[in-house]
């Protein structure tokens, strides 16, 4: 039983079907009586809610601390600008300028200021919504337009991961900092790809990342039947398990485009997700036997 197991659904390439796989996996796991959490960490463009249609019952703002300068106390010594590595605060002649979008909230300027002229000011970077999608616990982060502190918001979303359930994390696409933050301290990564040259190219990047952070992983091939055999040959050569092949099917695309769950409206594909769920249970057992289950999950309540 894949309870107390955190699975990240990621992909190098965008548009391969991360959310499709993550949401349907959550749905299938819930149908089979498991406790499931779905956490949308694709905070720049969260879309899990379109398919899971949760009832949102709680929400909160996520803020970071940015410097606020009291010009009465400031002696324009310039130390704040010298310590800031991001150009977010700078002393120009007789005034101090702040650029909140560039601030990384390191707190350096608050500490270095000997005039106590700089105090932390909360700046909203995004929101987190929680609710229920049937039996699925739903959590989703949404970054405010124009903000760039994606990993910070993802970290906050991941604080909602609970023990005693299968937590499915919908990861942003790519291989950059937000992805690293989203897969960090998870138990297992599912890399969703498509059997095209683009899919393969970006899969290789994602595999390199996941190997670098030393997480166990497997591949899901979506739209199986299009493109060529190169993805499967690559996985075979690299000894990477392919745990699911979801066929390319117009009816799947139709269900997707009307915001419906494949596992719900296309019964013949439900077993694909049920099987994936069972396979994840087996993977968890194997990892457990090998002593490879993550034990660094400090934030999990």
């Amino acid at each position, binding site marked *: 039983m894949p309870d107390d197991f955190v699975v990240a659904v990621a992909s190098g390439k965008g548009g391969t079907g991360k959310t499709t796989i993550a949401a349907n996996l959550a749905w299938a796991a819930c149908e089979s009586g498991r406790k499931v959490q779905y956490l949308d960490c694709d905070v720049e463009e969260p879309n899990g809610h379109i398919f899971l249609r949760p009832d949102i019952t709680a929400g909160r703002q996520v803020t970071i601390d940015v410097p606020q300068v009291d010009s009465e106390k400031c002696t324009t010594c310039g130390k704040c*600008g010298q310590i800031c590595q*991001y*150009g977010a605060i700078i002393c120009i*002649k007789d005034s101090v*300028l702040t*650029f909140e979008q*560039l601030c990384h909230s390191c707190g350096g300027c608050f500490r270095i200021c000997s005039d106590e002229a700089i105090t932390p000011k909360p700046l909203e970077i995004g929101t987190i919504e929680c609710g229920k999608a049937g039996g699925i616990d739903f959590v989703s982060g949404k970054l405010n337009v124009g903000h760039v502190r994606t990993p910070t918001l993802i970290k906050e979303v991941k604080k909602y991961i609970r023990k005693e359930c299968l937590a499915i994390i919908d990861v942003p696409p790519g291989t950059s900092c937000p992805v690293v933050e989203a897969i960090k301290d998870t138990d297992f990564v599912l890399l969703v790809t498509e059997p095209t040259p683009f899919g393969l190219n970006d899969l290789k990047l994602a595999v390199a990342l996941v190997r670098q952070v030393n997480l166990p992983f497997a591949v899901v091939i979506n739209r199986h039947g299009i493109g060529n055999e190169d993805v499967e040959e690559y996985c075979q050569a690299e000894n990477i398990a392919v745990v699911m092949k979801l066929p390319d099917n117009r009816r799947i695309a139709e269900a997707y485009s009307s915001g419906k769950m494949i596992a719900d409206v296309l019964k013949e594909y439900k077993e694909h997700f049920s099987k994936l769920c069972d396979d994840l249970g087996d993977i968890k057992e194997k990892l457990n036997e090998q002593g490879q289950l993550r034990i660094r999950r400090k934030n999990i309540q």
Partner: protein
Amino acid sequence: MKIAVTSTGDSLDSEVDPRFGRAAFFLIGDPETMEFAAVANENAAGGAAGIGSASLVIDEGAEAVLTGHCGPNAERTLSAAGVKLYTGVTGTVAEAVELFRSGGLTAAEGPSVQSHFGMDN
């Protein structure tokens, strides 16, 4: 009066660099004497290039900046120090300085481009 001109090279014959924050060089000097010194721009790569470059020309004592485009963060920084900004400048640095001397340039009222313009151009 000292002015700073963004430049693609280190001489007065170099073309004006169309980017302020990520300009390769600043030619800083006096338009009356035409004595200019080239300062390589360490801010051309990395983040907050506009703010760093504005800080550089302010520290060099420039009272006016001649460039192609300037983004909002650099404009705000230059403006805080009272540095006049002239955008849309093209040609060689010598030509730009000559145009400035003859009063052929009009100071900008604000930034000419959005943030990160210089990263793609």
